[in-house]
Every structure is written in C-alpha cells, then in structure tokens.
C-alpha cells in the first residue's frame, strides 16, 4: 500500500463491488510490463526556437539555454516526445486498450498526478529523440478526493542516437469523478478571481481542498465528528472519562476492538469492558502527505497501535516527527482535546531509556 494514495488511512480499496472490481483490476493489472510506446520518434529535432519559446513561457532566463553552446532545459524532456495536435506516434495498442478498458468500466476522467524525470545527458539543438515506454504498474483501486480510480504509471526511456539521455516516469489517475455537486458554475471567470479562495470554493473544487482554503478566513475547519451509536456509545463514554475501554466477551473472554455488537470468536452477544492500561507499540503506520483534509496538517503519521492488552487501534502518533515514527516504537495513551467538543485518544511516543 502506498502511503501517498491513502487519504487519512481510510477507505483505500473499496471491495464492496466485489466481483466487478476484481475483474477490472485483474484485467488492468495484466497490462503491467507491456509496452506503452515502441520506437517513438520525436516530431522535431531538439531546436533553438522551441527552447526559446519554452523559456519565454516559463520566464526562465538561464544563460545555459541560449548561445552557441546552449542546452535544452532538462525539464523539457517530455515536451520532445509529445504528439502535439497531430497525435501520438508510437503509442502501443496495449496502452490504448488499457485506457479503453478503464473508460468502459466508467473510469473516464484522467488527471496527471506525478512526473519523475532523470536527466542523464544534456540535450542540444540537432539531437534526434527516440523513446520507448512501458506500463510499469496499475494500482489497486484507490479513493481520492477527485474520485475513485486507478493510478497507471508508465516509464519512458528517451534516447539520442541509441544512447540513453533520460527517463520519464509519469503517473495518471483514471477515475470516476466524486459525486459532482453542480454548484452553479459561477458563469464566466469563476476561476479568474480564484485568488480569493472563496471563488475557487464556489466552483467544483473537491470540498476538502476548498475547506483547507477556508482556514484563512473565519473559522478553522473542525475534525470529523465520530459517529456514536448504540454499539459504540460505551467506548465514547469511556473516552469522556479518559478511559480507553476494550470490550471483553462474556462467553469466551476474548478482547475485541473496535467495538462490535457480538464476539467474532464465538458469536456471543454479551460483554463487559476492560480498561486499557495505556501502553502500546506502533504495529504499523502510514504517513499522510496528500491530499490535505480540513483540520489536518500534513504530513502526519497515522498509526496502527497494538495495545499491551493485544488489540489494535488506529490513532495518531504524537510527540514525534512524522518521519521518525517506526514500527515497534513504544507509545503511551493520552487524550487530546481537539476542539471544544471533541476529545480523542492519541498515542505519544515514549523515549527509550537506554535499552
């Protein structure tokens, strides 16, 4: 599981659609390793006019890109491989099939999410570009702010006269847009005044992003509220008294967490509770970088904490930098007043004392 694609560590891969999902995923996955482009030729030699137009657009005044010994801006790598208005040359059937498969399954929208380029040798005017690309990976289905879909990663090797000059890894998300809220497209120029976050919010920016922008304004967005129901009310009642309560089955004495109406081990519906001592260790964790959610300030660590009693729970790991969280790290329970209404159990990293 890739840390970046899991919003807040929740709802990474929905399995609710069962068979259909498995089928699309399996068929898409089968394209891994197949060629995405074979024997592609750059439509233009590397040339001064295109370099100059690029530098004008970017406002790049680097003298390395002009004059007798000019090189092309390395970040132009992909530009030399673009199809332009007349379309792509060398794109493989496999890649078109993969995109078509996802289109047919309803994942019709596409957005570029990542670009990773390595530059092995500078490009100079006159260089003739060739390229090949492979479908490197198809992710499991992921739920993102934009919607649910699959990340498709391709890697392109770019050459001049047969010699490698760079690699270009590109990731797109093929997705079904998240419940599109038709909030009256503010007619002309909604985005033109998007400098005020409000205008952007009015448009169809995913709610979470818009919420983040709202922090600058009146009230800071609040963390999501827990859904308290009759099956878990006892847990939240315990939290309100600064007690972390674990359920214990009356029938077989098995401890369980999170709270459930019956025992997974023996099915018995009767239970009492045990108060957790508060000691635990990090069993696993993810670091949340993107996307940002209101009231959360990435990057932050979401930990799967194994309590001394043996059950595990998901919570924040605090008191340690996100990149210092480690599996096995000892942690201790504490209660954090998140806002005036909400208090949550979190786990603070415990300094190891000598050994």
């Amino acid at each position, binding site marked *: 599981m890739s840390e970046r694609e899991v919003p807040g560590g929740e709802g990474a891969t929905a399995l609710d659609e069962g068979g259909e999902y498995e089928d699309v995923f399996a068929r898409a996955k089968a394209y891994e390793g197949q060629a995405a482009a074979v024997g592609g030729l750059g439509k233009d030699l590397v040339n001064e006019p*295109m370099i100059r*137009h*690029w530098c*004008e*657009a*970017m*406002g*790049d*005044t*680097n*003298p*390395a890109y002009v004059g007798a010994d000019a090189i092309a*801006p*390395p*970040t*132009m790598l*992909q*530009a030399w491989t*673009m*199809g*332009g*208005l007349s379309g792509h040359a060398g794109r493989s059937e496999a890649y078109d099939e993969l995109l078509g498969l996802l289109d047919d399954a309803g994942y019709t*929208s596409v957005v*570029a*999410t*990542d*670009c*990773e*380029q*390595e*530059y092995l040798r*500078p490009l100079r005017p006159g260089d003739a570009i060739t390229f090949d690309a492979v479908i490197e990976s198809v992710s499991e289905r992921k739920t993102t702010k934009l919607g649910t879909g699959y990340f498709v990663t391709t890697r392109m090797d770019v050459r001049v006269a047969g010699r490698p000059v760079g690699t270009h890894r590109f990731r797109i998300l093929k997705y079904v*847009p998240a419940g*599109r809220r038709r909030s009256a*497209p*503010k007619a002309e*120029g*909604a*985005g*033109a*005044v*998007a*400098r*005020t*976050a409000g*205008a*952007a*919010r*009015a*448009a*169809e*920016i995913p709610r979470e*992003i*818009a919420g*983040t*922008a709202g922090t600058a304004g009146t009230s800071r967005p609040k963390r999501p509220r827990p859904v308290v129901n009759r099956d878990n009310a006892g847990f939240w009642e315990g939290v309100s008294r600064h007690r972390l309560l674990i359920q214990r089955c009356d029938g077989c004495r098995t401890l369980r967490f999170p709270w459930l109406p019956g025992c997974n081990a023996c099915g018995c519906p009767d239970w009492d509770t045990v108060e957790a001592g508060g000691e635990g260790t990090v069993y696993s964790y993810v670091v949340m970088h*993107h*996307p*940002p959610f209101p009231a959360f300030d990435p990057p932050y660590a979401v930990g799967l904490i194994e309590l001394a009693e043996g059950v595990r729970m998901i919570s924040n790991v605090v008191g340690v930098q996100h990149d*210092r969280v480690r599996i096995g790290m000892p942690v201790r329970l504490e209660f954090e007043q998140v806002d005036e209404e909400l208090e949550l159990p979190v786990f603070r990293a415990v300094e190891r004392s000598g050994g």
Partner: protein
Amino acid sequence: MNTEVGPVRVGDVLPPLEIEITRTLIVAGAIASRDYQDVHHDAELARQKGSPDIFMNILTTNGLVGRYITDRFGPRSVLRRVAIRLGAPNYPGDTMVLTGTVEAVDGDTATVRVVGANGIGRHVTGTVTVTVPGAAGAVGADGARVAQGAEGAEGIEGAEDAAVHEAAGSRP
C-alpha cells in the same frame, strides 16, 4: 558522510519565487510543452469537464520547478532529477509561491525539497536533485548573480539574499 559542499548545507532554505498564474502563462506553458489538451486552453470545455476554469498542465509546473532551482543555484548548476506530485490545481488569477529546503548534500550534489503553494492548497510537492559544480565559493557567487539578474522579472527575488543557513546540527 560529508554533508557539505561549499555553502550548500542541509537545512538551507531557498528564497521563495512567486509566480502569478495568469491565463497567458497557462496557455503559453501548455503550447510551449506541446500539450493541446483542451482543459489547458479552453475554459468552456474545461467547465464541461467539471473544472471551474482552465488549469496549468504538469509540464509547465515541471518547468517552473526546474527554473526555480537553477535560478537559485546559478547557471552552472545541472538538474539531475526532478520528481513532482500535483495537488491543488493552478487556476488563472491565483498565485503560486515556490519554496525549497535542502534536504541532503552528497559531494557537489544537493537534494532539494520543493513546495509550490497556491490559494487553495499545495499545487506541487517534490524533490529536485541538482549538481552544483565548483563546490565551495562558486555556488554562492553564481546564486547571487542569478538572483540579481532575475530581479526585474520577479519582485520578490530582489529582496532576498543568498540562502538562509540553518544549523544542520540543530535537528534531532
């Protein structure tokens, strides 16, 4: 491991670069990168696809990140690797501020963490690996010269001096 080369140190914070996201920049960047996807130049079609307006393409973002690094480290610096991830889109009328922090230094090669924030969030996050030849002395000299050369174009640059040094040792 030697984590220093010349004046480039782990923890150095690069002066920010402020980019006005104009409609012209978005379109010029898309065309200069040979990207004719309609969402990068046709507001009407962009709206039909659920976007409030046209938005900057990833190739332009990549070019701006590369420019930010070579502006800061001087014309002799050589980009080795640029890896970026996009978040909040760059729509016309917004402003993106690029910031950078040196995360690692190995010989004459530095790894810089770059963030480009706009009015609605983080447009881009990424890392750039850049070689700065000449090591000691030359880096600062080149960096300063470029910063002055670009002063006219970007107001914010003129006010900034060379990279701010943060004591690398102060980190836990």
